[in-house]
């Protein structure tokens, strides 16, 4: 386990260097990045002054090193709009995004598992057929379009759910205010429903298909036949022998899943005006507030790398074959 841990940690460090390097170089791809930071009417002196202040006159290697040192100290640059720290701005909106992502993940997994199992055990029946049809539809529509359709029909026409709004859950939880959390919960879920379904639908469809096919594979294994032939009830065969093994590929996906959903929130939050990181990014794109966009991408990748690391380590602990490879 020791060598695996070291190797895996090293890999994560390389990835983080890569991500920051890409994010750093992207800024320089456009030519002199100073122009992104000054107004269009700035005089030559003002541009020169800004260039020196921002350090863009330094050699690239020095600039990258400074950038890394700043990142290590938690300085992700300042927003061009509010002049405040980009990290702080992201910090303010991150709880809403985590709520949405976790809720989406919960929907994607808690629904996909039974759906996939039912489809697999009823292979070839109309139930299986319609599940697979829904799944392929779910993977084929732009999720933000589903969001728009939900708003249009469920929200506006049938008035079943609110089309936008947000009730905080994580903030009271962090403050230790469980009473507010409990009173907020029912409303919060109501607001989470439509954006949650929207970000979950792609993963839900993919997971359902994945679980179905991995169930089918397991169900054709010898040990399942053995279990059946020794007279076990079908239910026991499915749940105790097949299901557990069918879950393995799904567990591997979990870490990637969170990151994938995190990538999707940018668009979905924009649709629902959800007050999270995605909407901040959208707003910053329109304002050309590059430091905020850059900081978000870097932070998201850190989270992503960290999660993958944790998942891999847990996985290696559970399955010795991985770490010996």
């Amino acid at each position, binding site marked *: 386990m020791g060598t695996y841990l070291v190797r895996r940690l090293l890999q994560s460090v390389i990835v983080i260097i890569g991500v920051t390097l890409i994010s750093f170089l992207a800024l320089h791809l456009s030519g002199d990045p100073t122009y992104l930071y000054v107004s269009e009417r700035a005089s030559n002196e003002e541009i020169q002054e800004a260039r020196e202040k921002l350090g863009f006159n330094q050699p690239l290697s020095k600039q990258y090193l400074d950038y890394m040192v700043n990142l290590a100290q938690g300085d992700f640059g300042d927003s061009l709009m509010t002049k405040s720290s980009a990290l702080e701005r992201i910090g303010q909106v991150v709880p809403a995004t985590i709520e949405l992502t976790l809720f989406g993940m919960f929907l994607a997994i808690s629904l996909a598992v039974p759906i996939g199992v039912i489809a697999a055990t009823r292979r070839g029946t109309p139930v299986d057929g319609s599940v697979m049809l829904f799944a392929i539809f779910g993977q084929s529509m732009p999720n933000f379009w589903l969001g728009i359709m939900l708003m249009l029909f469920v929200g506006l026409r049938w008035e079943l759910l609110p089309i936008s709004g947000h009730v905080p859950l994580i903030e009271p939880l962090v403050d230790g205010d469980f009473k507010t959390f409990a009173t907020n919960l029912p409303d919060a879920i109501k607001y989470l429903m439509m954006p949650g379904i929207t970000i979950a639908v792609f993963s839900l469809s993919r997971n359902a298909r994945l679980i179905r096919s991995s169930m089918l594979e397991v169900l054709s294994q010898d040990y399942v036949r053995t279990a059946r032939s020794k007279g076990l009830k079908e239910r026991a065969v499915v749940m105790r022998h097949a299901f557990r093994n069918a879950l393995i590929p799904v567990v591997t996906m979990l870490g990637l899943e969170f990151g994938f959903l995190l990538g999707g929130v940018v*668009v979905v939050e924009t649709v629902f005006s959800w007050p999270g990181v995605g909407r901040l990014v959208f707003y910053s794109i329109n304002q050309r507030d590059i430091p905020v966009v850059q900081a978000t991408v870097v932070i998201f990748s850190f989270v992503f790398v960290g999660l993958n690391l944790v998942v891999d380590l847990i996985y290696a602990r559970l399955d010795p074959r991985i770490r010996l490879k």
Partner: protein
Amino acid sequence: MTEQATLPLSAAPTTADILTLGMREREQSALRRAVRSMLRARWPVLALFILVVVVSVAILAPELSPKDPNRINLILRLKAPFEREQTGEMEFIFGTDALGRDVLSRLFYGARVSLLVGLTAVCIGGLLGTTLGILAGYFGGRVDDVIMRLADIQLAFPFILLAIMVLVILGRGVLNLVLVLGVGQWVTYARIARGTTMAQREKEYVEAAQSIGASNLRIMFRGILPNILAPLIVIASFNVASVILTEASLSFLGLGVPPTVPTWGGMLAESRDQLIANRWWLAVFPGVAIMLTVLSLNILGDWLRDLLDPRLRGTI
């Protein structure tokens, strides 16, 4: 029956003969097998039909469009679809948008961008990824290490974020969009190409080609490439679908092609302002267009996978 594939007796076998041995025979029966399996599966026929329609509409957009897609006419703004004029004629079948532009014509032109961006990006990603993958698989060692670490880095964060960052900095435009989307796809191709190349490298035909002095380049691209193409084609068909979805998302965020070019994603972005007023047609039609196109590509991809390489089931 198909002609027997044998080495010509007249001359000593060349590298090309060794590398293409038996391929002609395979090609002929493959086509027949493809048609038969498609008719049997039924759904792929429908999917293919939809795609042919979408491609034709894209190519023939100038001829098919009833109106100029960019002609603004504020008097005719926000006309509902399927409404008859007093003359009894339906002038705007799918209605008009907030600037009075014909939704149907914009849909037709939008097909061009979606397909063009999807196909070009997949070509770029496919060529780049396949080349790097074959290099990694064929040479192994240091080359393999470097290429695969690059792949790890790219897989380490959600691609759309990278695309957003690069496009915000570089600015929107067809070329930037296609490049970013293309570069974003290489990893999938590289991983598959690498794995399959490693398996092919051990085969006898590679050894035979090496022993008669064929260059590495020739072995890799004339010998190995045709043998590993099947899974790569399957990935490409799914990939066009996912690139079209990503392009729609980026256009929705205002990072796609410039706003004067009608795109499906851009139309959806514009429809957002009209939601509260219940102008449903602005959102429904472009969304359905995207969904039908992507759905058809996915169905065809599924079918192609089962046809070319059933072992891939569950992995892609």
